[in-house]
Every structure is written in C-alpha cells, then in structure tokens.
C-alpha cells in the first residue's frame, strides 16, 4: 500500500460529510453571446472541500476551462454568467457571494483567496523582469504594507516550497527550463496562501518525468498547507492518481462527480466509461483495442461539423484571437 492509497482510503471515509466546503457552485450557466448564443457551461453544481483535490476532466470544448474561469469571474465578454450562484466559504467563517462582488472587491479576492495557474502558464511570465520582481509585484499589489525583508523572505519561501532554488530569484524566465517556469508559476499562485488553487492543464506541455515532479509537489503542498485544488485536465489516468474526487464534463454539463476510486471502478455515465477506455493500461493485458481494426472512428467524430458554428474555443481568453 502506498501513501497515496492510504490517503485515498481516508478521503473516502471522511468525505464528503466531514470536511467543510470552501467553494459551492450552484447551477452555474455560462453563455457565449455570439450570433447564436452558445451555452458553454450548463447548470453546473459542485462543492469543493477544504484540502481537497478535485479533478475536472473533459475534452477540448467541453467547457471545463470556461467553468474554471467563471468561478473566478475571469471570463471575458462575450462570455457571461447567465445564472447560478458561486459562494466562497472563507476560513474565518464568512460566506462570500462571488457574483455580487464589486470590481475592487473582486480584485482583492482573486489571488488572495483563490488563485489560478493557467494553461501554458510557463509562457506567461514576463520575459523582461526577474522572477524576484514578479513575485514582489504580486505581493505588494495585495499586501502593500509588507516590508522589503518580508517580501524577500516570502519569495524565497514559496520558491523553496515548489522545489526551486531561491538562488533563482534573480533569473529571467528564459534562463529557466519549462518545468522550472511552471513551478515558479505555481509558487506565484500560492504566494498569498490562497484557500483555493485552480490549475488548468498545468502539466500538459511538460515531459512526463517533469510532470511527475510537479504533481508530487502539488500533492505535498496540499497536504502541508491544506488548500483546495481544482485540477483541470483531459488526462483521466493522471486525475485518478492525484484527485480525491473527479468531475467529468461533457458538452458543458457535469455528467458525473464521484470519488476517484468509485469513478474508476464503477463509472455510471457512458461517457466516463468511454474516456476511461481511451487510455490503454500500461501494465494490463494487451487489450481488445490493439490493432484489431475495429472502432477506428470514435462515435460522434464522423459527423460533419461544418454546420455547427465554431464555439469560440473553450478558453475565454481565446488564445488565437
């Protein structure tokens, strides 16, 4: 039995009743106001508990990124939240209705209570300033009264936490490897000790060995600092490794939300089963899909898509546009 197994068993026992929720999303609907409005997220409801890693699985265009952005109200028009309620339950007992926040309150809320690691975040570091300056800017933006010494100490501490040598503070982003930059981004996300971290495909662009390091780091940090993590990816086996619970999204709807163990053993929704079946097992039998020539076309793929309007990508930032 490995440590992760123990943890998982524990989680199954204690969850969901015993840990307190940190974020509640109720019937959230996000619509893209384009020619024919597209509903990117449809009546999504989920509860995130303190110290929990919640996996959000789905394929491109399923709305998982839109959901993550909307929770933070980081989505950009023409995307808009058309209905629903998002409540953040603060550590000190206050409940915050995120949708009711004024702009200034929202800015204070983001990053401080809830931070994000974006898709391709490792390329989001400012190339012309040092890591130190970028950490400092973020800190001072939210904690203007921090002294220079405190800033330095905090910066060194977060870097050490994500496994980057604090000596790298003076480095420019291009002097760091991809994995290192991704760690710096994670360090930046935990700078203000948020209670929730949303990570959107944080390891997709990285090599598997580096990915492994970062996953270990995330799990370890979670154990130490007890923040909740929403981990978004299309890689279901990876989620099964690290998450306590997994939500599977299909066409904007959460079709299944279950503990990792249960989801793997007894998935109810056919789409979940299909996703699970899409990953050949590394160590299992050489299965039925092996070069049999059947099942060459995934269901739904063969339908011509010319008629459906291009949904303005899943990411509200629309990297291309």
């Amino acid at each position, binding site marked *: 039995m490995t440590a992760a197994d123990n943890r998982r068993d524990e989680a199954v026992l204690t969850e969901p009743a015993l840990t307190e929720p940190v974020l509640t999303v109720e019937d959230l609907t996000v619509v893209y106001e384009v020619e024919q409005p597209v509903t990117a997220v449809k009546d999504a409801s989920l509860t995130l508990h303190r110290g929990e890693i919640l996996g959000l699985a789905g394929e491109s265009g399923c709305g998982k990124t839109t959901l993550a952005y909307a929770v933070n109200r980081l989505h950009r028009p023409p995307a*808009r939240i058309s*209905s629903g309620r998002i409540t953040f339950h603060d550590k000190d007992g206050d409940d915050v209705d995120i*949708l009711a926040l004024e702009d200034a309150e929202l800015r204070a809320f983001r990053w401080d209570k809830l931070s994000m690691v974006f898709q391709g975040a490792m*390329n*989001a570091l400012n190339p012309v300033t040092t890591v130190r300056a970028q950490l400092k800017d973020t800190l001072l933006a939210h904690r203007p009264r921090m002294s220079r010494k405190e800033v330095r100490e905090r910066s060194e501490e977060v870097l050490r936490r994500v496994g980057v040598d604090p000596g790298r503070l003076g480095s420019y982003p291009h002097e760091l490897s991809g994995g290192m930059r991704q760690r710096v981004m994670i360090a930046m996300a935990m700078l203000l000790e948020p209670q929730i971290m949303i990570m959107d495909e944080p390891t997709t662009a990285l090599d598997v060995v580096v990915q492994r390091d970062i996953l270990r780091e995330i799990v370890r940090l979670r154990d130490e600092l007890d923040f909740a993590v929403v981990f978004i990816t299309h890689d279901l086996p990876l989620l099964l490794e690290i998450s306590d619970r997994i939500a599977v999204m299909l066409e904007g709807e959460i079709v299944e939300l279950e503990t990792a163990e249960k989801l793997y053993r007894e998935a109810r929704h056919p789409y979940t089963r299909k996703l699970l079946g899409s990953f050949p097992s590394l160590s299992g039998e050489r299965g039925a899909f092996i070069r049999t020539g059947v099942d060459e076309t995934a269901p739904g793929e063969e339908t011509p898509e010319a008629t459906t309007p291009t949904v303005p990508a899943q990411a509200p930032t629309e990297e*291309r546009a």
Partner: protein
Amino acid sequence: MTNLKPTSEPSVADSAELLAETSAESGRPVRSGWRMLLPTMTPWLAIGLGLIVAITLFGVIGPYLVGDPRAIRDMGLTGPSADFWLGTTQTGQDVLAQLAHATRGSLQIGVIVGLLATALSAFFGIYGAYRGRAVDEVFSLFTNVFLVIPGLPLVIVISGFVPAESRGLWTIAVVLAVTSWAGSARVLRAQTLSVRNRDYVAASQVSGERPWRVIIVEILPNLLPVIASQFVFAVIAAILGEAGLSFIGLGASNSSTLGTMLFYAQNGFALSLGAWWWFIPPGLIIALFGTGLSLVNFSIDEIINPKLKNLRLHRKRARRAARLERELAQAARRGGPAATASKESAR
C-alpha cells in the same frame, strides 16, 4: 501582477486560418481560399475604391476627351470658364487637358514602380527566407544595405546624374523602385520565415513538391494580403516621390505628371498670382488618390489581421454580455433570487 494571459504573437501567417474561423463563426463557410482573401465591403472601402476608380478613369479616358495640352493660346492665366473648365496656364494652355495627361503619367509611374518594387521585395524577401542559410544571409545583407540608403537624396543624385534627355519615365520608375523595395522585403522575409516553419510546408516538401511550387502554391497565398498591402503602399509612395522629384525639376523629361504640373505652376508664380486653378487640381488629385489607396489598405489590413474585422461586432456582443452580467451581480447584491432574475433578463 504579471501578465497572466498566454501571450501569442499574432502573425500574418495565421490570417488564413483566422479568417476561416471568423467566417465560420458568422455562419458563412467559405469554400474557396481565394474568395476568403477578398475584403468585405465597408463604407470606407467603397469610398476608397470610388476615388481610385474615378481618378483612374479620368487618367485613362480623360486624355482622349480633352484637347491638346500643349497648345498655346493668347489668353494666359484665365480662371475657370465654360470653354476651359479649369482655366488656363500662363501660356494659355488648357489646365484640364494638362490635368488629364498628368494624371495618366502619374498613374503610370505609380503602377510601374508598385509592380517593380513588389517584385523585388517578393524575390529578395520570400526567396531568401525560403532558401535560408547563405542565400538568406546574402539577401538579407543586400536588403539591409538598401534599407539604410537614404531614398530621396539618392534619387536626387541619380536623377541629377542621368542627363535630362535620357531621363525617361522608365528611368525614374526604376530609380524609385530600387530605393523603395527594401522595407517591404524585410517584412516579407519575417513573414516567410514564420510560414516556412509551418508543418504544412514541411509536409508538402516531404510529399515531393518542388521548391518553386512550395513557394508559389503553399506559401505565397498566405502572404498575399501583405503583398497587396505593400503594393498599394508602394504605389502611393511612388506617386508622391515622383511628384517630389518633378517638383524640383528632376522628373522624367519626356512625360507630364502631376509633379511636373506643379513644377510649372510654381515656376509660373501661380501661387503669388492667385491662380489657384492651376495648382490646386493636381494637388487635390494626388491627395485624393492617396486617400483612396489608404482606405483600400485599411480593408486589406482587416484581412491580414481578421481581428480588426470583427472588432466592432465583438465589442457590441461584449458590451451586451457585460451589461447582462452587471444586472445579475446587482440582483445578487440585492440578495434577490439571482438565478431567476437573470434568467428572465437573458430572455
């Protein structure tokens, strides 16, 4: 806070894809690649095209309808009248007739220089970048040398060096083209380098496509908007440049252009004598033609960067989305049933 959005440099090379996406989004799938490259009609484009067509027609057909521009009459410097719509010059020549011929001359120069400069920049920019390595280095160096040569002084020196009798239209055109292609070549080189590294170029090479075909069929279409824009710009620059040269008396000796007209007007003290009909029409034609080409260029810009095209539409939608969301936030702040309130407002 740091820049948290993934930064992706926009590149002209993406324009085809972006255009395809935008047109797909607006529900009109574009089947032909070529049609996609045509700008959409906007009021500005219509005005621009209108100006260009009108002036071009005037330059092409005008000379056949007017009298001899050189005929000297005994009625110097008369204002516009029924016989001479734009009055006469100091020596009694018909300004309208001169204007028609001058417009034709300027257009000729503009088009010739535009074509030459575009051909030069395309060759040095695209071919050099495609071949890479030594060829690119040499072409690049050559381009850079031409880039730093100060254009107008060189033109003046060359024009002054060539004896007036052999200083024909073509000489001037070549001189103007040679001094004006380098900037475009650099832009094209950068764009080609970007397109050249696309997988589809590699794929066509792997399938055995010959280099010239890769350049013309696979790369060039993706650069056409840039080339078109550069051509338009080269035409404007050439007409202005030629006008400048002619104005200082270094223009083509055997042809009449808008610049030579201004030169004679200046020599004839048109300004101090108040003969506005002599210098305003050529000046106006230059200005209007330049305006027309610029307006067309703006439309081409929308093709190069399709984001511009949907900007207004996008802004409108974004405003609507933001407004609806504000209502939702207000409803939430009032503590009312946010969900129902917003669902109603969404209807």
